[in-house]
């Protein structure tokens, strides 16, 4: 079974690189097609040292393996009526003759038309944004997305909630497979001494992540500090809030951090907070759980599929800073409870976010697509 996975850039995101490395061990014939234009692509001068920054040291497989499977970008000069991306993907298909073509992001979904017209089965991944906001603010987009999902041989989602949403929008049963993203699970979780009453939250600084609510909640938590890891378009808003609410001694915007620093910071924090207004299932939440951190999360998207109130995490009310603060204050200082929640979160992570489970899920997913092509 030859699978062509299409990603928009290379080096790609950390979690996708991890996915490809793990999967390539199980399915050696997996190929990666990158659709960036040659001027922007790093394929021609593939820089391993740069990739090492993106992919931290927890990968057991040498990066050469992925490098060896990269197909590169083909000749653009022929087929003048096609876009650059279409030419790239068409060339990759013609040269490598894959059994399945998989599209990892919704902005690549338009390319499905090529394998579809050529009679090659294609599959797609739904991670959240493509099926959430876009779908209900833009009717044309929603109709187009439903058409693509109905044409797909199989659909991968990172949580059950996205599959339910896709079925609801398309008003038909869809071949949906939930395969959770895998995260690094340290073999021996170190007993790093956590700072007292220190919260951490990690995500792109985007309104959907609800950081403005979390920062406002901090007004009511005078003995607690908060580190926010990530960057994005909301930076000015959040920075303004921190200063105008006089929280600069306790709330810090740290920007993006290398994985090692992020992990250390996470270990030193008392608990992880996710104030999101909309989610699939957050990778950072999974990473926090893998590190044995107690988590305070909003009940959005697929979060409740794995978090059970009071067992392996706590729910905080979405969009309600006072409610958030009350809940955190009520439980954060209960050391015994925090420890219990952290241990249970770690167990959940071991069970749900392992590489083995991820690879097994994807192999089953592709097998289904192959058998039903």
């Amino acid at each position, binding site marked *: 079974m030859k699978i062509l996975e299409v990603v928009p850039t290379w080096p790609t995101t950390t979690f996708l690189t991890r996915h490809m490395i793990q999967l390539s061990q199980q399915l050696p014939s997996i190929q990666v097609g990158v659709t960036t234009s040659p001027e922007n692509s790093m394929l021609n001068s593939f820089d391993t040292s740069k990739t090492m920054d993106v992919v931290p040291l927890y990968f057991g497989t040498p990066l050469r393996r992925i490098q060896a499977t990269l197909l590169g970008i083909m000749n653009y000069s022929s087929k003048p009526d096609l876009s650059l991306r279409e030419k790239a993907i068409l060339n990759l298909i013609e040269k490598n003759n894959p059994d399945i073509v998989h599209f990892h992001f919704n902005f690549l979904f338009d390319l499905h038309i090529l394998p579809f017209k050529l009679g090659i089965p294609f599959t797609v991944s739904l991670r959240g944004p493509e099926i959430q906001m876009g779908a209900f603010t833009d009717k044309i987009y929603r109709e187009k997305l439903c058409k693509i999902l109905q044409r797909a041989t199989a659909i991968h989602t990172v949580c059950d909630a996205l599959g339910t949403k896709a079925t609801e929008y398309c008003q038909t049963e869809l071949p949906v497979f939930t395969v959770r993203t895998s995260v690094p699970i340290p073999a021996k979780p170190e007993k790093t001494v956590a700072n007292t009453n220190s919260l951490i939250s990690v995500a792109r600084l985007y309104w959907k992540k609800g950081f403005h609510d979390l920062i406002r909640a901090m007004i009511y938590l005078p003995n607690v500090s908060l580190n926010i890891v990530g960057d994005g378009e909301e930076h*000015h808003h959040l920075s303004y809030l921190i200063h105008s609410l006089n929280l600069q001694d306790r709330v810090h915007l740290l920007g993006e951090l290398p994985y090692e620093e992020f992990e250390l910071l996470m270990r030193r924090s008392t608990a992880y907070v996710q104030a999101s207004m909309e989610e699939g299932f957050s990778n950072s939440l999974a990473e926090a759980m893998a590190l044995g951190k107690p988590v305070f999360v909003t009940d959005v998207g697929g979060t409740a599929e794995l978090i059970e109130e009071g067992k392996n995490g706590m729910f905080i009310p979405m969009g309600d800073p006072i409610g958030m603060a009350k809940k955190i204050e009520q439980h954060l200082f209960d050391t015994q409870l925090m420890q219990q929640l952290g241990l249970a979160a770690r167990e959940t992570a071991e069970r749900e976010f392992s590489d083995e489970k991820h690879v097994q899920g994807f192999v089953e997913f592709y097998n289904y697509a192959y058998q039903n092509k």
Partner: protein
Amino acid sequence: MNVLEIVPSWPPSMYLLEHIYSLHASAINLVLGNTNSSDHDITTVNSIRPSQFFTPVYDLTKFSWQANFRKLDKMRLSNVDKNLSYIIDKHQPDLIHFHSSHDAIQHHHKAVELSIPYTVSLNSSDIYLEVLEDEAYLPKLYEMLKSTARIHISYEGLASDVEQIPEVSAPITTIRIAYPKSDVIPNSDNMPMHLISAGELTWQNGFHDLVRAMIHLPNMSLDIIGTGFDYRHLVFLIHTYNLQDRVQVLENITFDSCRDLIGKATAYVHSGIVQEVSEYLLLAMSMGKPVFVTNNVGMDELVEDRNNGIYIPIGEVVGMAKQLKTLADVDLMQKIGNAARTSVEKMFVPQTHTEKFIQFYQSACHDMAR
């Protein structure tokens, strides 16, 4: 007196258009330099404000000079200073005024080099927000302000913060914006409780707080007029809280339609987190509409709580909703609407604005001559 005014974009904001028009009609020979690459589109200007001008817009533009500094910069034709030098050579201004601190930071060196005095307008964004975007901004701002002849601000509230800037000795002058009179559209009896708010859909305007406040106001409806990055955020909130029957975001509304919609609303809401007094707020007040406002920079100079407006807390959804319930008090709203109109008519008189600006320019030239 020849004054070269550098405006950040064309068409400029409504209050700048009003300023330009009022000064253009005065004795000052005003030359405009535009630093934005946008095309000069008279139809757009007309759609923004057609009837407020006594003179057709093309009269204004015919006598103005435009230069696309940034466009030239992008095209790498030369540096921006060359273009500015050309305008200065051609018009021989006695004074250069920068309406944006960004342009002043970038171009004031040319004025210094030619010993031409320059002045600058500062707003709250220059003082409180720009530094959040660029850490190097403040030192550059301070450097530029050291040699400015005079500083213009629109609200007294900014003065104390500007005064704290080290090594700045230039006099600070408060000149309120010019705002023309509008037709009064009073609320009718038994009018449904309908709120309206307008502005760019950005976090600074706090519309996300206002939409959330609507959860607690089941008998009220709300129209938000504007476009911007926060559109999806607001639509998300409206759907998530099931408010789509009562709350809508209206994009691409012309100024005339905006005025009509404000006229049909029971009250105007200004929920800004950091936004100064907006032109839409002034429009609503000048039409005799009661207003609910957050207490941002300059607001306390315009609005006295429960006299000509009602304050709502910044970023506090429940507190905001509690105050908005006052809308049910028809007599109070009537009183506030009338007082609001009187305030705007007294405070934002175009003639006063023109006189004060001419005096501002003359003083700047006079100071430098001495």
